[in-house]
C-alpha cells in the first residue's frame, strides 16, 4: 500500500500480550495509536503458539485464593477470560494459574481492540525497519508503506527494533537459551487424570523403546483444554541436535522446530490412538500458527533486572509492575525447573527496564524487556507481559502528548 505517510502518536510493534495491553492503554490515554501485527490475530504466543495458561497474574502466597499482582489490564483480561471459559484460577503446587483458551483469547482481543476509537489495528502487517527522525520514528512496512509515530513501543518479543538498530541487546548463549516448544490441539475423549497421564507416559516410553517414536517424543506432555473432548499437547524441543545450534531468530532453525513438532505430534497421537482405549479415534485437530519461543533477544535498558533481584524480591522507586512468577528455567527439553523468590516475595520491575538505554521516544514491553537471562525466566510470562505492556503504553502516550 502506498500513498501518504500515516502519522500516529504511538505505534506498537507486535500484538502479543504485551502489545495488546500497550496499544489499548495508549489509546485510552488519548493517543492516536496503531498496532502492527504480522499474524491474523492478537495474542502472540497465547494465540499463534497455543500457549494456554496465563501465569504471573497472581501473587505467590501460602493462603488459599488467588490475588492479582497487577490489577488494571490484567484484571480486565482475567474477568473476560473467566467469563469465556467458565474456569477460574487454579493452584498447582505453589502457584496460581488462570487457564486460558487461545480461541477465546483471539476473540476477546478483537473485542477489546475494536472498543478503542483512537486505536487502529493492522494485522498482516510486517514491520521491516525503523528510523529515528527529529520528533519520532519512521516505520517501514513489508508492503513498501511507511508510517510515522511520535513514540514507539517494541512489543515484538524478539526486540526487533534493537536488531534493526544493530545493538543495545543481549542474547543468551545458544546452549542455555530457554528451550522452544511446539503446542498443538488434539480431539480426544481421554480423561487426563493422574492415572490417564501416567498411562500416556508409559505408552510413549514403550513407543520410544520400540523405535516407533522419534526421540523428541521424550518432551511430550498433554493437558486437558477445559473443553470436552479437547486436549493440548506440548513437545519441548532442544532446538538442534544437542541444543548448541539453537537460534530462535534463524528461519532455518524455526523451520526445523515446526516440522519436528508436527512430526512428533502426529506420530505420538497415532501411537496413543492405537494402544489406549481412551485415545481411540484421537487425532490432531489444531496446528499452531507458529512454534513457541520462550527467549531470544533482550533489550539492554537503563536498568537490567537480574535473577538475584527477582530472588530477593527487590523493590524500586520507579517500579511499574510486579513480577511474581518463579524463575521457570527451561534450559533443557526435560521440563521446567522452578526457582522461587525468598519468602514468595514479588519483585518490582522498574520503568527503566522498559527504557532502552540512550534512545528517546522508545519503550519496550513483554518478554524482551531489559532483564538478564534468569530474570527473564520470570518476567516472560503473559501476566507480567500484560503489566509491562500497560506501563509502556501509558508512558509512550505521555511522550506523544508532550
Amino acid at each position, binding site marked *: 500500500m502506498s500513498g501518504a505517510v500515516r502519522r500516529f502518536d504511538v505505534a506498537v510493534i507486535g500484538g502479543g500480550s504485551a502489545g495488546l495491553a500497550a496499544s489499548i492503554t495508549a489509546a485510552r490515554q488519548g493517543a492516536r495509536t496503531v498496532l502492527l501485527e504480522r499474524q491474523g490475530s492478537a495474542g502472540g504466543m497465547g494465540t499463534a503458539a497455543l500457549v494456554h495458561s496465563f501465569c504471573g497474574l497472581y501473587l505467590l502466597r501460602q493462603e488459599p485464593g488467588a490475588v492479582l499482582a497487577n490489577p488494571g489490564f490484567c484484571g480486565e483480561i482475567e474477568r473476560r477470560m473467566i467469563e469465556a471459559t467458565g474456569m477460574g484460577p487454579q493452584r498447582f503446587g505453589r502457584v496460581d494459574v488462570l487457564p486460558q483458551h487461545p480461541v477465546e483469547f483471539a476473540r476477546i482481543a478483537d473485542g477489546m481492540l475494536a472498543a478503542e476509537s483512537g486505536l487502529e489495528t493492522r494485522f498482516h502487517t510486517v514491520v521491516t525497519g525503523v528510523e529515528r527522525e527529529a520528533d519520532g520514528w519512521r516505520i517501514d512496512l513489508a508492503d513498501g508503506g511507511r508510517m510515522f509515530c511520535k513514540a514507539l513501543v517494541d512489543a515484538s518479543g524478539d526486540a526487533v527494533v534493537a536488531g534493526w538498530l544493530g545493538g543495545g541487546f543481549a542474547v543468551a548463549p545458544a546452549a542455555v537459551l530457554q528451550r522452544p516448544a511446539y503446542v498443538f490441539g488434539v480431539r480426544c475423549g481421554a480423561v487426563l487424570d493422574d*492415572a490417564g497421564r501416567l*498411562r500416556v*507416559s508409559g505408552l510413549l*516410553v514403550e513407543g*520410544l523403546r520400540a523405535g516407533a517414536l522419534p526421540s523428541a517424543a521424550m518432551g511430550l506432555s498433554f493437558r486437558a483444554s477445559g473443553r470436552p473432548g479437547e486436549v493440548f499437547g506440548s513437545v519441548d524441543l532442544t532446538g538442534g541436535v544437542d541444543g548448541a545450534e539453537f537460534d530462535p531468530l534463524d528461519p532455518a532453525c524455526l523451520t526445523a522446530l515446526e516440522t519436528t513438532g508436527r512430526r512428533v505430534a502426529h506420530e505420538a497421537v497415532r501411537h496413543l490412538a492405537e494402544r489406549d482405549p481412551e485415545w481411540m479415534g484421537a487425532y490432531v485437530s489444531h496446528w499452531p500458527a507458529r512454534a513457541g519461543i520462550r527467549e531470544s533477544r533482550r533489550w539492554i535498558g537503563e536498568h537490567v533486572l537480574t535473577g538475584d533481584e527477582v530472588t530477593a524480591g527487590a523493590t524500586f522507586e520507579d517500579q511499574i509492575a510486579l513480577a511474581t512468577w518463579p524463575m521457570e528455567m527451561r534450559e533443557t527439553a526435560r521440563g521446567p525447573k*522452578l526457582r522461587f523468590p525468598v519468602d514468595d516475595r514479588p519483585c518490582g520491575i522498574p520503568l527503566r527496564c522498559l527504557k532502552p538505554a540512550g534512545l528517546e521516544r522508545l519503550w519496550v514491553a513483554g518478554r524482551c524487556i531489559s532483564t538478564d537471562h534468569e530474570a527473564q525466566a520470570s518476567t516472560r510470562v503473559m501476566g507480567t507481559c500484560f503489566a509491562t505492556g500497560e506501563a509502556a503504553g501509558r508512558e509512550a502516550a505521555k511522550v506523544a502528548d508532550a
Partner: protein
Amino acid sequence: MASSKKLSPNPTELIDWMNGEGLLELDWDFPEDGDLFAAGLDSMAVMQLVVAVEDEYGVELTPEDLTKEALATPTTLAALIAGKMS
C-alpha cells in the same frame, strides 16, 4: 546381564540418584515417604524416570507399573524397582 550386578536401591539412594540424573530437584532432607508428584514428578519426568531406571537398574517399567501409588514416594518407587529386579 549388566543389571544383575546392580543392587536394588534403597529410598535414600534413589533420592540422590534422581537428583544426580536431573530428574527432580529434591531437597537434601527430602523424606523417604515424601510426595514425589508434589515435588515435580510430572508426566515428562515420569518418562525420563522410566528410561533412566532402565539404564541404571536394567528393569523395564511397563505402562501397567506406572500407577500413582507405585510412584508416590521414594519408598514405593524403591519397592517397585526391587520387585522388578528380583
